[in-house]
């Protein structure tokens, strides 16, 4: 029953890492107390900066009384952010799709359909989910005294940076969170500024049945940084929720300058398979070798690795 009773290799290393870091955390906590003169809760559980009030964009406010030490993350993007802000050692379990970083303790948890019992089995003191319609998960976990932090996918880059800072604040790494947000923002801005604007058009493929994004989406905003024009906009970027399914005919007719494939891992697509599609060999992007394979994960997450995604677009635009 106890997670400790069946130690897997990854589990053992996690425990040992936790033990190693504990003194450090204690020192940090004490230092924090001294600086902030927050002695009111310095007893059993009180720690630097806590309690904190968290106001995530588009989700309920959450107040954390103590610094969370047993975090369950059911959001792959947030899992990455947790490790980037230095809260990796506080993470006890992540969902099955949290594939990065490798050492994240993946468990048989679903982020799409969170199971309160399975989550509670990890004895968490903070659960982070992507969505919680009607607050059903929060209600269920609330009965076991566990706070639920809902962090929806950001709709703008600004909101993504804010989320980095918020994850830092929630885990007792407020400064690291702020620094991370600033660093990612400046790197992305720099990449965009140093890439020539060639007034090119593009098609971003989400899956091989031609689902795509418009410029009214998070990804669309990133492409706009480079002055790229989205062929799926068609006058109204907000149509179809920003994620329309195009016809092959429409794509070939629009003849985008650049084709970005975000279905390389899921569905085995690449420049060669695209060139073999009926009619696609007549497209400028295919003829001029401007079909670019992206990492599916990078193109669907809002983690600090966004920089890598932005860099691959920058390289593509520079090459074109």
């Amino acid at each position: 029953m106890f997670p400790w009773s069946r130690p897997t290799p990854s589990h053992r290393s996690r425990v040992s890492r936790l033990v190693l870091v504990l003194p450090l955390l204690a020192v940090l906590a004490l230092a924090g107390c001294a600086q902030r003169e927050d002695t009111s809760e310095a007893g059993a559980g009180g720690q630097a900066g806590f309690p904190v009030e968290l106001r995530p964009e588009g989700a309920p406010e959450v107040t954390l009384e103590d610094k969370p030490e047993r975090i369950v993350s059911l959001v792959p993007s947030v899992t990455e952010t947790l490790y980037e802000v230095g809260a990796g050692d506080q993470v006890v379990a992540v969902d099955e799709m949290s594939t990065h970083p490798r050492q994240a303790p993946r468990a048989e948890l679903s982020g799409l359909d969170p199971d309160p019992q399975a989550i509670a089995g990890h004895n968490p003191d903070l659960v982070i989910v992507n969505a919680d319609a009607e607050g059903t998960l929060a209600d269920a976990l609330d009965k076991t005294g566990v706070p639920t932090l809902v962090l929806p996918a950001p709709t703008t880059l600004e909101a993504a940076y804010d989320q980095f800072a918020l994850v830092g604040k929630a885990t007792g790494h407020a400064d690291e969170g702020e620094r991370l947000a600033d660093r990612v923002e400046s790197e992305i801005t720099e990449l965009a500024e140093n890439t020539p604007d060639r007034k090119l058009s593009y098609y971003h493929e989400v899956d091989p049945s031609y689902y795509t994004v418009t410029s009214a989406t998070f990804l669309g905003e990133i492409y706009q940084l480079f002055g790229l024009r989205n062929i799926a906009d068609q006058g109204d970027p907000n149509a179809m929720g920003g994620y329309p399914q195009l016809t092959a005919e429409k794509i070939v007719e629009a003849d985008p300058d650049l084709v970005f494939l975000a279905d390389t891992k899921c569905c085995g697509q690449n420049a060669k398979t695209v060139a073999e599609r009926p009619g696609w060999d007549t497209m400028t992007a295919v003829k001029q070798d401007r079909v670019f394979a992206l990492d599916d994960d990078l193109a669907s997450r809002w983690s600090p690795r966004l920089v890598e995604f932005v860099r691959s677009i920058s390289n593509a635009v520079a090459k074109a």
Partner: protein
Amino acid sequence: MTLTRRSAPRPEAAEHTTRLRPGVLAVSLAVLLAAVVFSLLAGSGELGWQRVLGEIWAQLTGGLSPLSEREAAIVWELRMPRVLLAGLVGAALAGAGAAFQGVFRNPLAEPYLLGAAAGAGMAATMVVVFAPAVTTWVVGPLPAAAFAGALLGVGLSWVLGRSAGGSGTAGLLLAGVAVTAFLTAVQTFVQQLNTDTIKQVYTWTLGGLNISGWTDVLVALPYIALAAVVLVAAARLLDVLTLGDAEAASLGLRPGRIRLVLLAAASLATAAAVSVSGLIGFVGIVVPHLVRLLAGASYRVIVPLSLVGGAVFLVLADVVARTIMPGELPLGVVTAFAGAPFFALVLRTNRERLS
């Protein structure tokens, strides 16, 4: 020619509804041709129909085409196979639906009744989950698996039905229910363990022709053509079956054997349709009924006209699916959304015939 035909009196000539009159068939084929041409001209983008017409004319006469290489590819590599595939799939589903309704003597029977949809769905899910990146095959693993899955579902139902209820239809029907439930459970279970693939499976389930090319047409054509020939040739036997097994047996026929042949042909067509287009509902159940209401109750009329009518219906539905919105609409949604009210209207205007 007409004189000699008129001069030879035939017993069934008096009753129009038992035989398909050549005029009716000619009209329906003309409607199909018109639908295909219309669909070929219709597009959502800037490629105007006049210029497509110019391209077709140029192809026919060897003249100069107004289209660029890329635009010509849109018409011939993307639009044309899609239109033809819509016709093939519509014909397959409606023809199979007519056969199912005849075999089971049940107006609610449809091509997916014996587990074809559930089998295809399960197999498609397996491929999406376990072999997502295999793209080196000629056909692609998903259509191949869906085809095999559909036949597997029907085969299971047949074996189970035979072992449970002999050659009658009741046992087969119930076996279909059981197999459908079981295969759907397997699909749901696999999907639940791999929630990251839900969207792909869902998209496939909604049905559509948006990634179809000539390969799909050539892959589906032989099966559907063969099934169509068998169904048309056996339409008279369907008429006999409607009289009941005892009557059929007294005419020297073997009802169990007839059902096997008809269901095998119908399921082959269904499997081919499902493999290239996913699950498209409503065509198989509604088109045969429309034909029955409009043209007569004999299967010698219903089967051939359902083949043609299903093709017309799906070709037009696909025009809606690919042009009405900025993006693509799932074809299954269009067939139900457009077909259901139309069906209700036909039912209403034919009230006296039904009662």
